[in-house]
């Protein structure tokens, strides 16, 4: 096959590209330039797509002996991921930009371009297992539980997954680093990336504040209706947040307070106790089924509502275009905008059934 290896400049995508070469594919490396004004040097584990990352990707491609190009996706990335991120926060939701990037950039804009130019597939360094079962894609968790990225890939459609390759799915990260060193890849010891790549200083509040501005409102005790304080905008809060609420202690009863709801229309941040965060019902919209097969009737399965979040048993049912999920055990900090990803309820519990966007929660 002709395979386009997306190379971020990190160790995972470099080893993924190497494995694609070993598998006998004709591989071309492409680094996606996602920022119109990339930084020159990388700072610690923060961010990506600096010029240094581009150079690291190029050097890895050199070692593998494959052609390498940098493609500019800055405009598409800004429109589909960054602007969406800001809009979602402004609307009181908590988006997952990595998921969005996979849906709209890596396995959409990039994949389309690759297919158009004659490639058969896009290979990435994601930690998830992908195989074909009965002619349909089957997406499973990574062999490395800590690194598993099936959550941010679960919203890919079968036509996208049909052209995806995840060569690292069956390997743990430590082995990937060892393999990189064995292959002479300079990035073997490069730190993992964390946080959000387009917010290199890690200060999401400041980033959103600069984009959205000040939209003042009140922090309100959900139980009593009492105003506990003022804030600069609902975009500075996430459901489940406890720190940085800026509430005068004298107004509190001594128990920890959390953000339990956001109402952008009125600028209200609803504050309550840990108990108020407990969610047992989730309504999620725009479901996607990686295998192409929706669940049929009430289905016992497992649900995960955050990247690296905990997993609980549930019953999910498709009602019209929405997914109604009843949790067998309560979950806390379930934020609208995040994905609810369903996994099959077998012993391993690692096969993705589907993914949908959390719209509302209940208890």
């Amino acid at each position, binding site marked *: 096959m002709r395979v386009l290896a997306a190379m971020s400049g990190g160790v995972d995508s470099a080893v993924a590209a190497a494995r694609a070469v070993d598998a006998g594919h004709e591989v071309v490396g492409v680094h996606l330039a996602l920022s119109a004004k990339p930084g020159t040097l990388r700072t610690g584990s923060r961010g990506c797509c600096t010029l240094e990352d581009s150079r690291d990707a190029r050097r890895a491609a050199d070692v593998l002996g494959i052609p390498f*190009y940098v493609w500019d996706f800055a405009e598409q990335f800004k429109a589909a991921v960054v602007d969406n991120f800001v809009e979602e926060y402004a609307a009181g939701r908590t988006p997952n930009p990595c998921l969005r990037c996979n849906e709209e950039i890596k396995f959409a804009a990039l994949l389309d371009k690759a297919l158009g*130019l004659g490639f058969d597939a896009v290979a990435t360094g994601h930690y998830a297992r992908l195989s074909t079962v009965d002619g349909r894609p089957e997406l499973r968790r990574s062999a490395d539980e800590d690194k598993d990225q099936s959550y941010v890939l679960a919203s890919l459609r079968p036509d996208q997954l049909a052209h995806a390759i995840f060569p690292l799915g069956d390997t743990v990260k430590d082995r990937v680093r060892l393999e990189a060193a064995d292959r002479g890849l300079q990035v073997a010891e490069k730190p993992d990336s964390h946080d959000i790549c387009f917010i290199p200083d890690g200060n999401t509040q400041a980033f959103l504040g600069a984009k959205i501005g000040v939209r003042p409102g009140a922090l309100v005790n959900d139980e009593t209706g009492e105003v506990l304080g003022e804030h600069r905008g609902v975009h500075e809060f996430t459901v489940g947040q406890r720190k940085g609420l800026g509430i005068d202690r004298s107004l509190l009863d001594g128990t920890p307070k959390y953000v339990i709801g956001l109402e952008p229309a009125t600028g209200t941040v609803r504050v309550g106790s840990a108990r108020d965060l407990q969610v047992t019902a989730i309504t999620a919209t725009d479901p996607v089924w990686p295998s192409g097969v929706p669940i049929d009737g009430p289905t016992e399965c497992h649900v995960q509502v955050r990247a690296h979040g905990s997993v609980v048993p549930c019953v999910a049912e498709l009602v019209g275009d929405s997914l109604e999920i009843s949790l067998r055990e309560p979950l806390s900090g379930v934020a609208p905008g995040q994905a609810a990803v369903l996994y099959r309820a077998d012993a391993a519990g690692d096969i993705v059934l589907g993914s949908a966007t959390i719209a509302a929660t209940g208890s």
Partner: protein
Amino acid sequence: MTYLDHAATTPMLPEAVAAMTEALAELGNASSLHSSGRRARRRVEEAREDIADLVGARPSEVIFTAGGTESDNLALKGIYWARAARGKKRIVVSAVEHHAVLDAVQWLGEQGADITVLPPDALGRITPQTLAEHLGDDVALISVMLANNEVGTINPLRELAVTSGDIPLHSDAVQALGTLDVNFADLGADALTLSAHKIGGPYGAGILLLGRDVPCVPLLHGGGQERDVRSGTLDVPSVIGMATALRIAVTERDRRVAELIRLRDRLIAGVRAVVPDAVLNGDPEARLANNAHFSFPGCEGDGLLMLLDAKGIECSTGSACTAGIAQPSHVLLAMGADPAMARGSLRFSLGHTTTDEDIDAVLAVIGPVVERARSAGLVGARRGEGR
């Protein structure tokens, strides 16, 4: 392999390699006072006289630098600093300059210079009328390239020099040197940037031709080796390699240019025959003999480049930033091109090793390559509309 990116760099001429190789084994700092030093100095000064003779300059007007970028920076910053001290604080620069000029000017702007950007016409040319409209008593210097590195359009530099009057005029002649008659005295510019590796000389060697009466503050301070305007131990082998390459470029120019035009016109006609909607950018007449720059509607330049590269054909999307990203060319945008069209552009630049077989190779694949890139481009456009 078909190499059609000679505007980026061109193979060194064997004569230049031989002369330079010999010089590399020779001892001597041209600033030393003993006989080894004097021998080195003699070789440098002979090369300087040769070069001056070949480009219509006086030997004292030849300043050796480490390349075109340094020459541009020295001329722009040096002349600006010297003139700004006398109250002249405006720089008039064309919009289609190389980044070595534009970015230096932008930096000077951040330091307090006033910047006037000259718009080109649709062919990429700066006319004397445009220049005249933007001059005034406050102008420190003017910078307009002799020929554009992307689209190949040649500017009417002699007329621009007349229009500029007493205001110093700098011109980046890096792309012009191999194929145009570059004569410093005739052109009437006050400073001219030249580079060795574009004409078959070594990398990292350049010249600033600087009129004797043009004030210029140094960028590099030190030994003051070059007229006190540029310091640094003279790179004797590079100077010799550059002089050798320049002699061949100039003496063989007429014959070579005729051949380049024949090959280039074959390429242009052939591409148009296969891809009828391909647009030739730049001036169809007053263009560099080795330049063919096209926009392919509906295509993206990076896709075209990759597909051609896979077929062993090396060309350029025109301008690349440090990350290697193909961005819509500032030259085409300044010429009024649609950004989408600008993205779908390729520059083929021919040189002394180009043959009919190279042109055949392009013409054999350009049709399917454009078709393929177009289908990839259309998918992207559809997705964009779907949102």
